């Protein structure tokens, strides 16, 4: 069966991306002299239709049975060329790629050195290609359900789309209510429609949808398995309130001994709640939750003569015996929509956020202007004992964005516009207010943004180009030191209230999700998509998709668009009902396996087990791979002393010739 290898080598110019640095002609000539190479060509764009056609025709006409493409990274176009091989009737795994773009022409300037390196990479690829084996990928059934982590607008939208398509969705939210950040916002830019008014119907839809099972106050604890067949464990944290009995009447919260004494997270600490609380009036589900870290009864075992909430609850819903519950289920796809945290402005001490109560964040401002906020939408501040309406208000943009000193080089994309919106709202509510915006640049790139920015300036809001250097107190006023960089004038601006347009950051506990789902981070620390342009909602882990700000800062329409995109991607395996499992999995040579079980203890997927086989009359144990579970990492093979377990396509006998070729002893 072993047909002599006939290798075709195809060197790509990639326009001038490769050809400008690598002498593609020389590489082609060199390749012609390599063992088993029957043809070597170069072409402007191998990935283009005519480029692929070259390969396909050679396979048919020259009888090629192995193909080496020297072009970009296999992470980019391996699937493309595999498909081309398949279309020409060749096993798609008879392809090997030499990465002469990302890891050669783009990173080396010296044409001679880059060309020599490209030759060696091609030689290594040829030496491996000769020894490649045909593989067939198989398909397994996919579970017709999805897990959505995070029930902000991204998670809700994605869950609704998947559920509307007819598939079961498990929607898991960490906090007691769905809604996420959008629920905290007052109006949305640039249309100024009420955030809650457009969001709450969706929150209710998500909770009531027959295909959505909602877990609030819950966290994903464990994920195992693979696309089509993930096993998920969710921890439903104890609410100490029986949600089947709680009617949301709120009698308990009024009676709580700590009522009005605990800063409310939803109001960014501006409002107060009790130990038993509803995060906000429109919360879904409208069920109360006891804060176990604050509740007197839970922390000290004693609450006066007895917990007053228990007495007050007409439904008898309070249950201090309640415990966390672990729920397990299987899903075919996972969608991550865990959102963002805002930049912590104490990292910029010059703005005095930690020192002056009248320096607040943009998100706090949202709560302050919101009709459902702690002040009922009245913009008031405390000046000493006195409550006053601020007349001089300054906004500072790019706090924690575009700022290398705090490690955030990126633009948060929403602060320019939310600042403009808030400035407008201030002007709306306090018509005689003097409002300044200190900015570096104004980025009004979206639909209707520039128009809105113009409108706000016409309303009398002054934009001053300059990055404040310091904020300090003088009497009852805050003084902003800044240079107007357009006129090169140093200024001191006395104001009542400073709003810091804090940027968006990855969730502080993003690490947990990373470890749970094997995600990567991009340099900005947000979750990394599989490809920045072409696979923006996929991740390196098949079957796991990203939506919303966990992938990078974005506004609401972009978040919703991405959520719908991620939902559509997640629906592919669900709707097909089948997923292909990788063919590049490990294989055991039972004749040499000594049954030591090292691979069994190494395998992170429990894909290997020891089975008893009859070896010439002796019953011996050998390893066996469950191909549906194996992910092909090959950790087993490096731990096998007899090299009896080997990942297909990455076998020792395929890698050692690569080493020899690169070492130069081929």
């Amino acid at each position, binding site marked *: 069966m072993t047909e002599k290898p006939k290798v075709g080598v195809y060197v790509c110019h990639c326009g001038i991306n490769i050809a400008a640095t690598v002498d593609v002609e020389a590489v082609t000539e060199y390749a012609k002299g390599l063992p088993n190479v029957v043809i070597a060509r170069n072409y402007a764009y191998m990935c283009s239709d005519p480029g692929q056609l070259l390969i396909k025709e050679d396979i048919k006409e020259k009888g090629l049975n192995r193909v080496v493409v020297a072009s970009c*990274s*296999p*992470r*980019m176009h391996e699937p493309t060329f595999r498909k081309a091989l398949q279309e020409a009737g060749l096993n798609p795994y008879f392809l090997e790629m030499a*990465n002469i*773009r*990302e*890891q*050669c022409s*783009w*990173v*080396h*300037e*010296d044409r001679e*050195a*880059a060309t*020599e*390196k490209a030759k*060696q*990479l091609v030689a*290594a690829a040829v030496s491996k290609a000769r020894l490649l084996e045909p593989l067939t990928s198989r398909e397994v059934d996919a579970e017709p359900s999805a897990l959505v982590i995070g029930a902000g607008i991204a998670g809700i939208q994605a869950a609704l789309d998947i559920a509307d398509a007819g598939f079961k969705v498990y929607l898991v939210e960490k906090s007691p209510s769905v809604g996420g950040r959008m629920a905290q916002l007052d109006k949305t830019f640039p249309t100024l429609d009420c955030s809650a008014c457009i969001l709450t119907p969706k929150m209710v839809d998500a909770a009531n949808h027959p295909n959505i099972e909602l877990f609030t106050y819950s966290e994903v604890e464990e994920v195992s398995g693979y696309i089509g067949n993930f096993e998920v464990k969710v921890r439903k944290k104890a609410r100490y309130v029986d949600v089947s009995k709680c009617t949301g009447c709120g009698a308990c919260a009024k009676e709580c001994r700590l009522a009005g004494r605990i800063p409310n997270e939803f109001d960014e600490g501006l409002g107060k709640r009790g130990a038993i609380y509803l995060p906000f009036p429109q919360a879904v589900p409208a069920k109360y939750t006891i804060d176990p870290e604050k509740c007197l009864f839970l922390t000290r075992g004693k609450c006066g003569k007895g917990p007053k909430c228990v007495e007050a609850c007409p439904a008898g819903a309070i249950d201090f015996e309640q415990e966390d519950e672990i729920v397990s289920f299987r899903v075919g796809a996972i969608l991550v929509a865990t959102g963002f945290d805002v930049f912590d402005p104490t990292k910029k001490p010059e703005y005095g956020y930690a020192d002056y109560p009248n320096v607040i964040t943009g998100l706090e401002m949202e709560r302050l202007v919101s009709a459902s906020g702690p002040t009922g939408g009245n913009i008031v501040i405390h000046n000493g004992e006195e409550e006053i309406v601020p007349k001089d208000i300054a906004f500072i943009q790019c706090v924690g964005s575009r700022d290398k000193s705090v490690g955030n080089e990126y633009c948060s994309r929403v602060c320019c516009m939310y600042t403009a919106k808030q400035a407008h709202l201030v002007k709306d509510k306090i018509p005689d207010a003097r409002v300044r915006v200190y900015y570096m640049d104004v980025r009004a790139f979206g639909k209707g943004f520039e128009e809105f920015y113009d409108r706000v300036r016409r309303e009398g809001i002054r934009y001053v180009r300059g990055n404040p250097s310091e904020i300090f107190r003088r009497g009852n006023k805050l003084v902003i030191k800044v240079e107007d960089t357009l006129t090169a004038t140093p200024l001191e601006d006395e104001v009542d209230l400073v709003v810091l347009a804090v940027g968006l950051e990855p969730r502080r506990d993003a*690490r947990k999700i*990373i*470890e749970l789902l*094997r995600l*990567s*981070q*991009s*340099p900005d620390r947000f979750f*990394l998509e599989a490809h920045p342009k072409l696979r923006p909602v996929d991740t*390196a*882990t098949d079957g796991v998709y990203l939506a919303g700000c966990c992938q990078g800062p974005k506004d609401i329409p972009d978040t919703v668009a991405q959520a719908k995109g991620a939902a559509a991607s997640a629906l592919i395996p669900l709707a097909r009902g089948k997923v292909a499992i990788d063919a*590049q999995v490990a294989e055991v040579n039972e004749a040499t396996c000594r049954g030591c079980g090292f691979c069994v203890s*190494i395998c*992170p*997927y429990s894909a290997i087990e020891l089975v008893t086989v009859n070896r010439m009359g002796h019953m011996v144990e050998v390893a066996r791979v469950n191909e549906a579970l194996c*992910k*092909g*990492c*090959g*950790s087993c*093979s*490096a*731990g096998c002393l007899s090299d009896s377990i080997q*990942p297909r396509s*990455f076998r*020792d006998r395929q*890698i*050692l010739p*690569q*080493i*020899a070729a*690169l*070492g*130069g*002893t081929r």
Partner: protein
Amino acid sequence: MSEQFEPNIVAFLCNWCSYAGADLAGTSRIQYPANIKVIRVMCSGRVNPLFVVNALQQGADGVLISGCHPGDCHYMEGNFYARRRLKLLKELLEYIGVDPRRFNMSWVSASEGHKWKEVVEKAVEDARAAGPFNQFRRRQIGW
């Protein structure tokens, strides 16, 4: 001849972090020495430490292995195994007198294009300082 010695370095990179990080260095056009030649494996856990011995025997003056940071492994644990195995190999090589500068290992994530450049530069500088490793070359059998 005072031409500087150009060491030959073979690197083993995991597909998900370090190879992606090296690709990112490419897309970002971050320049680094051409002495490094990469073999892609799916996981640093796939790197049989004997690959290193073999590479040194077959013409490498230095070897670099790079994987995901601990906790970031696409396969959850592969890099932990790699770390343990390659530490043993490193000890062994040093003990028999192989210049420690011939062996480097790094964690480079998919976002660390700049770190990849630094790692390569160090590996190349190290191997250059260690000089050609001819003593251990496999003898070619000429019949």
